[in-house]
């Protein structure tokens, strides 16, 4: 297996997943790139950490009353899943259909929404939008609980068109009104009591009561509607059917997928990929899976050009480092701190800043978030007690009798943490740092935590601190 193959697979896994360890890359490499893409796109049993073990150990994750436990619960899945694209696509939709805790005070409803993204996130876009329109968290988040026959609330109708499917400029204000009429009667069970509890953050008397969808036919506007030039007695499903077949929708969805999975910025080559994704979207009957397959198998995505063309989002960075370090594979006290850690870096799971989601790309980075990002990954990947770090040391010790020059030490560590491709200036600084630790390293006879292992740990720390590691 060539290093080129590993580098390509590592690139795929950074985008379609949360990075990969060398063991995982070897397994993917054995089946090849296309087979790996298809495995990612067709998730089987994710073999995530068993729910009964989590609930026994973490009562806060059983109850899910609070945001931190809910965020931690999702992080456990991201860290342990064998089907990383299932979680990555859920993270994508979470950013696009951004629904936040602050208004809902209902962590469980948010996690149920994420679970819906797992079930429908790679399937048909129209089916996904129907599920989204029935999603209890979304119904309250965008006030469809206040959207009544004869007294519409346009919030959901507007965002469905502007932020969730077509984008501004492809419909009229009248379309928004007609769309909103079609979604009257789509609400929560016990909407009034649940909305009251949400607005007061009430956990009383016996903790939260979870939400479910309810269709109130007596509150649904049965009248004729005209939407995007079509007229009929439309209900919400009919509206979504019309939305899904619009060119603007195909373009919007393909563009957002491209920016999340391929590159923050779209150039002319990227435009061609987006065109191809749109074609796949229509050919497949609006399948997200088909559009993504076209992307992952495109020359553009597989070329050097797409490498490191995205700033890692905080959750990608955090989960990626944890998966490489091999930690949090069993219920671990303090896992809720990970949820806070994402928030400190600027991406609190289940609490996007607004319905527009997070501002990505370069905007992830400021001096405050960079300190948090570097410190977390540097500490995680230099901890000699973490299984993933031990695996790296074992591989180093098995090479060349465990004797490594500073150059070899740096190159091998870069390789095993990615491969991570770094600029010459970066590599020079890394080699200087490794050499300052004292000439060639001899790992033969190394013992956990001894001085030789400590030198590896130090090099891993600095690699984790590079700019290159901040990019996906």
């Amino acid at each position: 297996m060539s290093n080129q193959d590993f580098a390509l697979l590592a690139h795929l896994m950074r985008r379609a997943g949360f990075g990969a360890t060398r063991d995982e890359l070897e397994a993917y490499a054995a089946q090849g790139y296309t087979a790996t893409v298809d495995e990612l796109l067709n998730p089987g049993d994710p073999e995530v950490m068993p729910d009964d073990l989590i609930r026994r150990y973490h009562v806060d994750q059983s109850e899910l009353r609070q945001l931190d436990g809910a965020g931690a619960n999702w992080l456990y899945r991201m860290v342990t899943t064998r089907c990383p694209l299932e979680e990555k696509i859920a993270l994508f939709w979470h950013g696009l259909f951004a629904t936040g805790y602050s208004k809902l005070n209902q962590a469980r409803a948010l996690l149920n929404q994420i679970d819906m993204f797992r079930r429908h996130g790679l399937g048909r876009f129209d089916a996904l939008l129907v599920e989204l329109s029935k999603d209890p968290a979304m119904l309250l988040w965008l006030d469809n609980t206040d959207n009544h026959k004869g007294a519409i609330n346009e919030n959901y109708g507007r965002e469905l068109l502007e932020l969730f499917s077509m984008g501004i400029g492809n419909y009229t204000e009248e379309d928004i009104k007609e769309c909103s009429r079609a979604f009257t009667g789509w609400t929560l069970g016990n909407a009034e009591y649940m909305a009251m509890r949400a607005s007061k953050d009430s956990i009383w008397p016996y903790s939260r009561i979870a939400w479910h969808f309810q269709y109130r036919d007596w509150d649904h506007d049965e009248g004729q509607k005209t939407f995007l030039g079509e007229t009929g007695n439309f209900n919400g499903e009919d509206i979504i059917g019309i939305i899904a077949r619009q060119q603007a929708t195909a373009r919007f969805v393909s563009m957002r997928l491209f920016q999340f999975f391929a590159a923050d910025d779209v150039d002319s080559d990227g435009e061609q990929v987006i065109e191809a994704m749109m074609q796949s979207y229509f050919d497949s009957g609006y399948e997200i899976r088909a559009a993504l397959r076209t992307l992952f198998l495109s020359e553009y995505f597989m070329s050097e050009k797409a490498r490191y063309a995205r700033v890692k989002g905080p959750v990608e960075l955090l989960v990626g480092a944890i998966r490489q370090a091999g930690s949090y594979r069993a219920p671990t006290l303090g896992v809720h701190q990970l949820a806070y850690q994402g928030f400190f870096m600027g991406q609190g799971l289940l609490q996007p800043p607004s319905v527009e989601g997070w501002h990505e790309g370069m905007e992830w980075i400021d001096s405050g978030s960079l300190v948090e990002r570097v410190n977390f990954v540097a500490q995680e990947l230099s901890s000699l007690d973490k299984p993933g770090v031990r695996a790296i040391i074992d591989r180093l010790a098995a090479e060349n009798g465990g004797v490594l020059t500073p150059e070899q030490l740096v190159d091998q560590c870069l390789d095993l943490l990615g491969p991570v491709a770094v600029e010459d200036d970066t590599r020079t600084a890394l080699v200087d740092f490794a050499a300052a630790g004292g000439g060639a390293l001899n790992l033969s006879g190394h013992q956990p935590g001894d001085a030789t292992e400590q030198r590896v740990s130090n090099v891993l720390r600095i690699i984790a601190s590079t700019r290159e590691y901040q990019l996906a």
Partner: protein
Amino acid sequence: MSTQGVMQGVTMAYVKTIGIVNNGDNGRGFANPHDVVVSRDGRIFVLNRCDPARATAIRVGICNLDEEYLGEFGNGFGEGDGQFGLPVAMALGSQERLYVTDEYLHRVSIFNTSDGTFMGKWGVMGSGDGQVNGPAGIAIDDDDNVYIADQNNHRIQKFTTDGQYVSQWGEKGAGSGQFNMPWGLCAAGGHVYVADWRNDRVQKFTGDGTYVAAFGSSGDGDGQFSRPSGVAVDADGNIYVADWGNERIQVLGPDGSFQQRLRGQATLSKWAEAFFAVNPDEQGTREVADLTPSLPPHLETPYQISSQVEPYFWGPASVTVDADNRLYVAETNRHRLQIYQRV
């Protein structure tokens, strides 16, 4: 939907609910109650497991059947004397002593029940004789023998009250006398009953570990269990099982025969009524709400149903029976006790 099962020999009647969620403050209410024991004088001790993010609420709270809050002890999250990491279960010994297991700190802490004074602790993490790994359920028999469900060593160990190792039995497995992450324990009538959590059964032994019987199998039918977490036995030998994964309580006869299942029917406690008295806006919308709704198919596991249907048991981790045949069910996720009376 009926909450009462087919009635045979033993019948339980609902009495009342005690509790309200406590968000980490001082005073009345519970924070993820994980176990309950009742002293002879009628004081109800509730173990608030909570979680380290709400560190001060990890403690033992005391109330009585009249819903008077009598106080609390334990010093919150930490490794110091009188503090807890992840407390699991409690047992009352002689001389006003309360024993509390801690699966994170791998130890037993002992308190005086009259004033909450910390009296001592014992326990060493490991897998050797007398060492423990994730101690969960604890029971003390009439002779002050202490039994501990040694969760991650998949065995039961027997100690003196000052922590001297006496004996042990079991190993990991699914055969008779083997365990898979045992949780709740009960010592009664010369026998020890074990909620063999990940084997979905209850096993019965003599006090020296001789296997007597096993009840139940995996499933949600009568007499079947899903991850049973607690067990209690009354003076007549009837067995009460916290069928945690099925979010219900099952009552078995002394021979293990199915008697009744309970799904829970909580009502407002005094503390809950006091809350609604000053929050009439919430009370108003609650009164017109359907608190036992029917649900879409993807939300129909017992766990999901319990998250939606407030009166049902949710996270019933532990059961205990008092001298008057009252059954107390501690619900971790609903911060309350539901109390039933054998009639």
